[in-house]
C-alpha cells in the first residue's frame, strides 16, 4: 500500500512539474525589473513553505510523542525534519543565486537569511544528535525537546520580513498581503509548484519513515540476539 502511495505521489508530482515548467519558461513573461532570474521564485518560495510546513508537522508529532510516549511519532518527526532540512537548503541556495544578480552579493546578514541559516543549523544539529544517542527513549525525548525549541526560530523566519527592516523582499503572496504585490498568474504558478514539491516531500517522508521502521526492527533484533 505504502509503495503504491509513493509511486502515485511521484507520478502526480512529475506530471504537475512538467506542466509548471512549461508555464514558467514558455508562457509566463519576464519580470519587468529582474528579467529571467525572477523565475527562481517558483522554487525558492515553495521550498521555503515546504520546509516550514514540515517543521510544524514535526512539532505536532514531537508534542504527540511527549504526551503518548509512542516511538512511532518520533520516527515520523525525524523523517519529516530530514526532508524539511533538504528543502530549506534548496531555499537558501536558490535565494543566494538570486541575490547575486539582484543585490550583487551571494550573502548578507539580513534577519531573514540569518534566521533561516540558524534554522537549518538547529535542525541539522537535531539530526546529528539523533545519531549520537543510542537509547531510543532518551533519543526521542531529547529530539522532541530540540524540535520544539527549533520551531521558535521557524516562527522568527516566517515573521522576520514583517517584524524587521530587511534587504529581503517583503511578503508577496496575497494570503499574507491581501493581494496586489504579485501578478495572479505568477502567484498561481507558485501554488502549483508548492503542490508538486509538497507531493515530492510527502513521498520522501514515506520512504524515510519506512527506513526508520527498519532501523527500529534491526535494533530490537540485535537486542534479542544479545539477550539469547
Amino acid at each position, binding site marked *: 500500500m505504502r509503495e503504491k502511495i509513493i509511486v502515485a505521489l511521484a507520478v502526480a508530482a512529475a506530471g504537475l512539474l512538467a506542466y509548471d515548467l512549461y508555464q514558467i*519558461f514558455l508562457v509566463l513573461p*519576464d519580470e519587468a525589473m529582474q528579467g529571467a*532570474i525572477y523565475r*527562481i521564485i517558483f522554487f525558492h518560495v515553495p521550498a521555503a513553505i515546504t520546509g516550514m510546513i514540515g517543521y510544524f508537522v514535526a512539532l505536532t508529532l514531537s508534542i504527540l510523542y511527549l504526551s503518548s510516549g509512542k516511538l512511532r511519532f518520533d520516527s515520523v518527526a525525524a523523517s519529516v525534519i530530514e526532508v524539511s532540512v*533538504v528543502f530549506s537548503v*534548496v531555499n537558501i541556495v536558490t535565494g543566494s543565486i538570486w541575490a547575486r544578480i539582484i543585490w550583487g552579493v551571494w550573502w548578507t546578514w539580513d534577519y531573514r537569511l540569518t534566521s533561516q541559516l540558524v534554522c537549518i543549523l538547529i535542525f541539522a544539529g537535531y539530526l546529528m544528535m539523533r545519531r549520537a544517542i543510542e537509547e531510543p527513549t532518551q533519543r526521542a525525548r531529547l529530539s522532541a525537546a530540540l524540535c520544539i525549541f527549533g520551531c521558535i526560530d521557524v516562527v522568527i523566519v516566517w515573521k522576520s520580513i514583517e517584524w524587521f527592516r530587511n534587504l529581503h523582499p517583503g511578503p508577496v503572496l496575497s494570503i499574507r498581503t491581501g493581494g496586489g504585490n504579485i501578478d495572479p498568474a505568477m502567484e498561481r504558478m507558485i501554488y502549483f509548484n508548492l503542490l508538486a514539491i509538497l507531493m515530492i516531500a510527502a513521498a520522501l517522508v514515506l520512504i524515510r519513515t519506512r527506513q526508520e521502521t527498519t*532501523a527500529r526492527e*534491526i535494533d530490537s533484533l540485535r537486542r534479542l*540476539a544479545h539477550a*539469547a
Partner: protein
Amino acid sequence: MDARNFTFMFYGFLAAWLIVLVYVISLARRGARLRKELDDVRRLVHSNQSSQTSGLEERVR
C-alpha cells in the same frame, strides 16, 4: 525570454534539483544498507535460535 540573467536562473534550477537528487541517492543507498543489515541480523537471530534448540534437544536426549 530575457537572456541577461538566464545563466544564473539556470544555475538556480540546477542547484535546486541537484540538492534533491543527491538526497534521493543518499536515501536509496541508506535503504540498501539497512535492508542488508536487517538480513544479517535476522540470520544471526535465526542461527542463535536454532543452536539453542539443538542444545536443548541434546539435553533432553
